[in-house]
């Protein structure tokens, strides 16, 4: 029997999730036009944004989960990975049900950023990790890029709690830029 390639599976899952999110974006555009949301009161607009955020949250959560699994995939065996995936999924679902999507997403983002930082530190320390890309520069770039993207998502979600955090935004942007250049 052919062995399941975890990396490939995660990549395909990421591709499907990103495609689904793209379709949601296209749908939202047509809905925006159809409902003439450009000319409604700010209250109606906020309600629409909240509804769209709620629809997008499971997909973003799924992407974060895939990303979070990509990270220990560099450290752990697939058996532990499955266990971790189950645990994280349950944690996400639990917070979602009892405390709402925003807090669930925020928790997942915080866990993801910790994972990403650990990987970044391990890459910096020169430890051999299981990456798809080859070379120290590319591995460092990939770690920085993913950490930056998670921190950017955190900036967006935190807008609803703390307002705009410029230091977090600029940190995320710098990491993304550095990562893109290096990868």
């Amino acid at each position, binding site marked *: 029997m052919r062995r399941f390639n975890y990396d*490939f599976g995660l*990549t395909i899952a*990421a*591709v499907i999730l*990103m*495609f689904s*999110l*793209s379709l949601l*974006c*296209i749908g*939202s*555009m047509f809905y*925006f*036009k159809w409902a*003439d*949301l*450009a*000319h409604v009161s*700010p209250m109606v*607009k*906020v309600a*629409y*944004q909240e509804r*769209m*955020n709620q629809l997008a949250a499971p997909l973003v959560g799924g992407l974060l989960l895939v990303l979070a699994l990509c990270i220990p995939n560099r450290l752990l065996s697939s058996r532990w990975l499955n266990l971790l995936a189950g645990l994280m999924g349950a944690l996400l679902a639990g917070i979602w049900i009892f405390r709402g999507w925003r807090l669930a997403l925020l928790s997942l983002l915080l866990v993801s950023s910790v994972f990403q930082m650990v990987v970044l530190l391990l890459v910096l320390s020169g430890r051999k990790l299981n990456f*798809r*890309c080859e070379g120290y520069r590319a591995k460092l770039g990939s770690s920085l890029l993913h950490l930056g993207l998670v921190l*950017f998502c955190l*900036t967006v979600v935190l*807008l609803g709690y703390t307002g*705009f955090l*410029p230091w977090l*935004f600029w940190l*995320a*942007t710098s990491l*993304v*830029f550095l990562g*893109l*250049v290096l990868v």
Partner: protein
Amino acid sequence: MGFDLGHAFQVYQNLGGLVRIFLGILVAALIGTLVWYVFSEDERAWRWHYRTILVSVVTLGFALLLVGYLHLAIYLALPLELPPKLAPMINHWLKTMGHGVLPPYRPEAPPRFLLPPWLEREKFLFWFSGYAVMAIWACRGVSFRFTRATLSALLSLQLLILLFINPFTDPLPRFFEEIRPWTMPLSLMERARLFARLYPRMVFFYNAHYMWVHPPLLFLSYAALTVFFVACLSMLVIKRPELDQMAYRFARPGYIALTMGMLLGFPWALKAWGPNWWWDPKIASSIMMWLVFSTYFHARLYLTRRGMWSFVSWLGIICFVAMLYTFAASYLFPGEHTVH
């Protein structure tokens, strides 16, 4: 004595008219030499075609310089200068109504419009110039007839669009419509009211620092994406690794520019529009485009697997369609980015 904007405008229109005529000739020459190149084995055909592309790049560069000249003239000739009596009143208004976000008016250095060369219809000139330079670079690195011909066919199409859109005869129509009342005789109160409308627009839009990074990065990414699209299209026809390398060589800077352009638009949007713009159609379509582009990079990691070559090539083509759709969204969907 102030700078004569009328004279600068006339110079711009006259030279712009010449550029337009020359562009028309260039389009004819490009199409002619392209047909020669595609249908003949004559080696001179590519040389002549390549020279025509080079002349197109130089012409587009000159046109951009001309735009720069007009913008410099606007900067020098159109200060938002207030009568001395109005300055204290306006500064009081800026302090109370502007919540300190708008800088105070300084009579010794009145605010001036610092316009970048990617406003209104000029953005096509900037975008297509970027593409022309990248197409030349791409043509040098690849020898497949299909790829070269598609690259220059797209350049010809872009020059045709530029001729049709024509940013030379009637430049910056919306800007001049906004600013025109300022140049007319007005009462003190009318001038104060107009200043209160124009000054925030100047600070948050025309002169914003983000204006100098957000749009150009996106247009440069569009240009790189077009070359990337040609490479992906060629990958479907010719299965050679050089084409995948070419696609990646342009996808990478295109993705960097797109990601950074989008990220840098975030604080600008918060500053200019407040928090109420999330899920705006243009934002949604930009995110969609970025996601499709990201799937390309992820899928490309498995290019050697069965069926992935075609899948990755098609992803590149979908990326380009997503880009066209995102660009068109400003014209087709209502929202903060809508072009009326």
